[in-house]
């Protein structure tokens, strides 16, 4: 205040340039400091363990630096098979989720607001149940003398029990069920953002309902679908419980193999190398998808 009166007395009010600048900088730092806990956690929980994994994968059985784990991965067919199985299962799971999830998300997006909650609950409820419980529930349903087989034979749909579990079929059924919400939620969000007027406009301009859907609705829902499909695919790549239980040892995915290596051989180096390759493959998939679908819009919800 004293300064002000003085300056006014001189005929020139102060302009406070330095103070205003300092205030702006201080506000920016305060905002930035909010992210400190998250950065610390990411460092402790992700950067350090992954770095350690990376380091271990390059340590040979005698404790020397070596590429032997990676060499083995190329030499032994079982590794390649596990990777192929992993990608196959992930791809098929994603496909099933899209086929089931797209109509479901569409249905949800068309519902009046007061019904959405109820139906969304049906999608989310399994989400809140333990993964293991859900997986074993599928085992009960799908096994040779399980509910499904018994029921189908009772009403004469098929005569001999179908092999629905302890194989690829069972794994896919279980995984699709668990992954479905990850596809439906982003897709539903994308669909909710599609202005109803757009469909009316398409119709007004002469588009049949089918043409309006394929030329307007579907392209606009695509970013949501790609985002959801990517989440499902990437999560599936590292999935362990469901393939282990419902695959019955016949569906060897990378995660299953990592466990096997650790349990049977206690070979941290080999397990780490597998983990590193899976991580690199996952990142490659994401980068590729980002290039293909301009993912900045899909993943970060822009526009």
């Amino acid at each position: 205040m004293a300064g002000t009166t003085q300056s006014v007395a001189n005929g020139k009010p102060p302009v406070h340039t330095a103070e205003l600048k300092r205030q702006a900088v201080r506000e920016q730092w305060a905002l930035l400091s909010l992210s400190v806990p998250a950065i610390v956690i990411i460092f402790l929980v992700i950067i350090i363990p992954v770095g350690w994994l990376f380091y271990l994968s390059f340590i040979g059985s005698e404790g020397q630096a070596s590429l032997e784990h990676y060499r083995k991965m190329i030499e032994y067919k079982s590794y390649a098979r596990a990777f192929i199985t992993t990608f196959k299962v992930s791809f098929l799971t994603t496909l099933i989720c899209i086929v089931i999830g797209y109509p479901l998300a569409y249905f949800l997006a068309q519902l009046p607001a007061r019904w959405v909650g109820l139906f969304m609950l049906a999608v989310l409820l399994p989400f809140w149940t333990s993964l293991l419980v859900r997986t074993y529930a599928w085992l009960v349903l799908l096994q040779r003398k399980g509910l499904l087989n018994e029921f189908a034979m009772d009403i004469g749909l098929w005569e001999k029990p179908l092999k629905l579990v302890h194989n690829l079929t069972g794994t896919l059924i279980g995984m699709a069920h668990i992954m479905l919400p990850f596809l439906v939620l982003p897709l539903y969000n994308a669909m909710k953002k599609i202005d109803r007027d757009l469909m009316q406009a398409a119709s007004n301009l002469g588009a049949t309902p089918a043409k309006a859907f394929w030329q307007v609705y579907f392209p606009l829902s695509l970013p949501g679908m790609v985002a959801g499909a990517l989440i499902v695919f990437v999560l599936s790549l590292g999935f362990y419980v469901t393939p282990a239980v419902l695959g019955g040892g016949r569906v060897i995915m990378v995660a299953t193999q990592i466990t096997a290596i650790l349990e049977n051989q206690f070979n941290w180096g080999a397990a780490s190398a597998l983990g590193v390759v899976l991580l690199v493959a996952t990142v490659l998939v994401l980068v590729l998808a980002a290039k293909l679908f301009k993912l900045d819009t899909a993943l970060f919800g822009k526009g």
Partner: protein
Amino acid sequence: MKNQKSHESDSALPIVITGLTKRYGSLYALNSVDLNVRSGEFLTLLGPSGSGKTTLLMAIAGFNRPDAGSIRFGDTEMVLTPPHQREVGMVFQSYALFPHMTVAENIAFPLKLRGVSVAERRQRVDEALQTVQLDGLGERAIDQLSGGQRQRVALARAFVFRPRILLMDEPLSALDKKLRERMQIELKQLHRQLGVTTVYVTHDQREALTMSDRIVVINHGKLVQVGTPEVIYNSPADTFVADFIGESTILPLQRNSSDQLMFGDQPINAEPADPAIRNWSLVIRPERLYVAPEGAMDGRAAVSFKGIVKEQVFQGDTAFVLVAVNNHEIGLRYSTGSLSLAMEPGSNVTVKLKQEDVIIVPRDMAE
């Protein structure tokens, strides 16, 4: 636009609506509406929100299914026809431009659906862009356009396939005042150029007066009055229309022992349109009132009010004065250019109305 003249006769279709009814629960959005839209005219549906004007427009477009009634385009019954077969152009309030398409793709969309060849498509898109003064912006993405530009694209897309009926749902409501007023003129010019039957929805009475050949005033799902802007403004059908369109002061009139309509002790000489109706109100348009020196002889005046100036507001081109007369407040508007009346609040004033400016309307007893 060269062959405009040659097919002028078939560039527009009349719309004949009879008995159109739409209920939401027990509420009538449209209550047995009868309306003829003449071939090639610019007709505005005007009403407050919830009056049913948009419901009526959407029924014409085919987006909502009425409970009963008939909608004919020319001689063809349309009420059962799905929207994509109605061949009407429509400009949406939100513009509803496809965000994943460029400007040119948006405009070409209806042409593509109709199997127009690539070459002709390009030519007609260019023509349409020229008509709405967006030449050369065809490759722009929708999110690179300003509000006014989007409005024009929506317009171009609505008429590019040469529909014989054009519908517009408050197309200018998202624009700022200056741009809105310019677009009003442009839309009118475009309508004249295309010659297409146009049904326009707005809640802005000034916009309706500016643009329309005829105005339909809607309230509570019913048509209150249909007429030219002049008729609607100068002879409103009732107090609702008088109040909704333009500024007005509405004063209740009484009848004296000899059945003469009176305001206070002043007789109001006007012929009630319907002698069966007993209760009438006087409608005073603020710009029709004038100030006269007190006590001076004035042969032009049919009614005069003595009052006290309560408030004077300068609004640029005009000034608005509120005059207290008995228990009523009467608004007066005068052009600041022609007069400079220093009407100090508290001063006495006499305001007068000429006989031709005396408007009476049946009084809505609900008020």
